């Protein structure tokens, strides 16, 4: 079960990166807020159809759900706004790497304490090593991008 979940999530990452590429092209002509707005609208339309045919939950239970569970949507919007702000000041690469650091570090912390009633997975030695390899990966991303930019700017 775990492996299938991981593969499924990998696909989620793949589609997310295709989304940023596509939205990047669209936003150059239409603007950032406009692009994000459109993304949410078309996403809602697709999901409305999918839920009509395959939805097994209860969308009206939303009115009984605790408010803290509904607040997550503001975190998503906060991400978008903070991200746009940071990109204008420090650039895309520095922003993505910093975002990933925040994302990964807090995710193992959430697991460790089991916040929000989630699974409790302790931050053991193995996970500390995992964090170390994540940092190594981010270092290589930084180096790799720097090299790409240098090569792109090199006169032919």
């Amino acid at each position, binding site marked *: 079960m775990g492996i299938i*979940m991981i593969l499924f999530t990998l696909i989620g990452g793949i589609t997310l990166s295709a989304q940023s590429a596509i939205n990047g092209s669209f936003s150059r002509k239409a603007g950032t807020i406009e692009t994000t707005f459109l993304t949410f609208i078309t996403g809602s339309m697709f999901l409305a159809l*999918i839920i009509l045919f395959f939805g*097994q939950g209860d969308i009206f239970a939303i009115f009984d759900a605790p408010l803290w569970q509904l607040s997550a949507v503001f975190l998503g919007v906060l991400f978008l706004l903070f991200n746009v702000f940071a990109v204008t000041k420090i650039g895309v690469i520095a922003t993505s790497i910093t975002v990933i650091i925040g994302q990964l570090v807090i995710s193992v912390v959430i697991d460790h304490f089991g916040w929000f009633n*989630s699974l409790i997975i302790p931050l053991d030695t193995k996970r500390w090593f995992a964090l170390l390899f*994540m940092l190594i*990966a981010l270092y290589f991303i930084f180096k790799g991008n720097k090299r790409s930019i240098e090569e792109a700017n090199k006169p032919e």
Partner: protein
Amino acid sequence: MRFIAYIFALLAGMALSFEGAIYGELGKNIGKLETSFYNFIVGAIILGLLWLFFGRGNLSYVVKAPKWSLLGGVLGVVYLTAIVISIPFVGVGITMVAVIIGQLIMSMVIEHFGWLGTNKVKMNREKVLAVISMMIALILVN
């Protein structure tokens, strides 16, 4: 000022993980697809307001744009639904590492070939090493 931008980027990343963990719970409550739907509908409302008051771009470009460039939303649906399903099973840590590996590999491929309107950026040794290190991290985190 740059320092503040780094703090904001860090908070942005933390927001993503918190969002995933919280939606994992909402998903158990009202259903996974329904949770995605909630996010996209309410997100559209918030962005609609932001657009009305602060939008300086050109939304009408939507009718002239190439059709493939309108597919961002449906791709975002796959991502959000995947994490809502996965987090209650394997936790936030594994889910986020897996998402990032998917992103890393795909963005390298997209840029290498210059797909989807991106500037062509060649793959290099460092980027491949980054993916390998991230995969080691996934194995250790699991």
